[in-house]
């Protein structure tokens, strides 16, 4: 690597254009929103930046605090389900033959490259009252019902008069289902990376010394995969916390998350200073989670070395 003074013309000609772009069209807009978050609304579009903390205090009102807590709860549930589903998946991929490994990994990543909006729309078709999941459940109900009729139990209507379709869409269940659906690859990949690095002889030793598979899993595999678990949890939690599209399309009236409230402040409610404050609170939470990750993974690497 060269010190920049050694060929400063080259340094400046490569450095100046992207830096100008970053400041003008990325940091500039963020700085503007940061300023707006200390502003007061005066008239329909006029905002005076007065240095008030009113907007941040308003975000601490029970109504908005509740939405923050709900977003945390949904993102947490999503992370939990992703972890529970992804661990066996990552473990299985780690131990398949080399021929299958890239194929299975590609299959995990592929949905990730399909448009988020389209994946969410696809879930609507699956979950809605006339959707495929209800169709499938009805089919199962019908076959179970006719099975009972064959057994001569038909008159008792053990399964009810007829199949009632479930309301699976436009509620909190649909939001968490959608969040898990979208964020699963975020969890599988770091887990796989950690499990693949693991020295398998530890598992063999544990089994040879008489520990059960379950005990080996809990006291050998999980601790060894801990960096991957931490990474996966944070990488899943951060985008889930700031999701806009999933609660917007799959949720009901009470499934609003932070991003939806921010959107409303900037569009229909037209209260930019408050929206700006919420947006920066979300950003601070993101940075906090990222620094926790940096701290924990650094610490871990030092511990291993």
């Amino acid at each position, binding site marked *: *690597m*060269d*010190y920049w003074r050694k060929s400063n013309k080259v340094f400046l000609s*490569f*450095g100046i254009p*992207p830096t100008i*772009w*970053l400041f003008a*069209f*990325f940091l500039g*807009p*963020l700085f*503007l*929103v940061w300023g*707006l978050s200390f502003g007061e609304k005066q008239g329909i579009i006029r905002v005076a930046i007065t240095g008030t903390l009113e907007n941040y205090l308003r975000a601490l009102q029970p109504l908005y605090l509740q939405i923050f807590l709900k977003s945390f709860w949904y993102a947490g549930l999503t992370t939990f389900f992703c972890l529970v*589903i992804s661990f*066996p*998946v990552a*473990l*299985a*991929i780690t*131990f*398949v*033959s080399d021929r*299958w490994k890239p194929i*299975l990994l590609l*299959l*995990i990543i592929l*949905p990730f*490259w*399909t*448009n*988020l*909006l*389209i*994946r969410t*729309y*696809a879930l609507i*078709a699956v979950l*809605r009252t*006339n959707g*495929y999941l209800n169709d499938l459940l009805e089919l199962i109900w019908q076959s179970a019902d006719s099975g009972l009729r064959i057994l001569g139990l038909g008159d008792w209507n053990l399964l009810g008069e007829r199949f009632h379709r479930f309301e699976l869409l436009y509620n909190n269940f649909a939001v968490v289902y959608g969040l898990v659906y979208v964020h*699963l690859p975020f969890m599988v990949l770091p887990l796989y990376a950690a499990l693949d690095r693991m020295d*398998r002889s530890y*598992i*063999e030793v544990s089994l040879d010394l008489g520990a059960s*598979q379950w005990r080996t899993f809990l006291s050998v595999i999980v601790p060894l995969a801990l960096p991957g678990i931490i990474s996966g949890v944070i990488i899943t939690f*951060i*985008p889930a916390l*700031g999701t*806009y599209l999933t609660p917007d399309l799959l949720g009901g009236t009470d499934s609003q998350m932070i*991003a939806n409230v*921010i959107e409303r402040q*900037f569009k229909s409610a037209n209260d930019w200073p408050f929206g*700006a404050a919420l*947006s*920066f609170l*979300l*950003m601070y939470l*993101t940075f906090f989670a990222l620094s926790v990750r940096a701290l924990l993974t650094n610490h871990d690497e030092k511990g291993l070395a």
Partner: protein
Amino acid sequence: MSFRSNNPIGPLDYSRRTWMKLILLGTFVFLYAPIITLIAFSFNDSRRNIVWRGFTFKYYEKAWNNSSLVEAFANSLTIALFSTLISVVLGTMTAILLWRFRFPGKAGYEGLMSLPIVIPEICLGVAMMAFFSRIGWPSGLHWPLNLGAITIAHISFSFPFVTVVVRARLASFNRELEEAAKDLGAGEWQAFKDILIPHIRPGLIAAALLAFTLSLDDFVITFFTSGPDTITLPIKIYSMIRFSVTPEVNAASAVLIAITLIMTSFALWFQGRNGNQP
């Protein structure tokens, strides 16, 4: 995963245990069933999505004859093209800068450059909306100039991704080649153009394809920067979804999925070549 093996299952053959296979299978059904049914029912000859009534292309034809849908598609492709060109230039410059030079405050500079990758989309979206309204970005320009605001927003979140991809490719560049070229009388620019660029070309192509799909797929940030006469394909699909679930939307979605998948496989292929070349 040898499904038909007569060997007994060893203690470490986790992937050969039935329950593991079931979890894998279940996960893939969970991930793929919605997308596959979405695509399948874009070919279904029935207004109601549920029952299969035979194969048809008529919803593709209908989508093709929907002029606002086609216009949105043209807008999306135009934005993606310009965003890709500028992102690749800016991203490559940043990559070379960070790869070649030591300078004070480098760690902080790297952090700033990766900000667009990590901040929540909604925050960048509202920032762009506030920014363009505050500086009084002109509206009502002629096509394609009216797409300028969206293109600028797309470049801002795409070029750091280009930097990541190109920097990975630069790591395998042997600087002695560049020095040899300079010893033989090449100037900075000639060494750059004839030695460095040919080496990183696969990385540049992969990065360009990535930037293109990022732009083509973006909904949230575009949602905040688009106006009534600057509709992109995801924005159009979003408003159609809000209105109703129709096979026409399925057809438009299937086209977008196909484009993204083709682009991404090319990108992967070029990145794969990255690793194989010295």
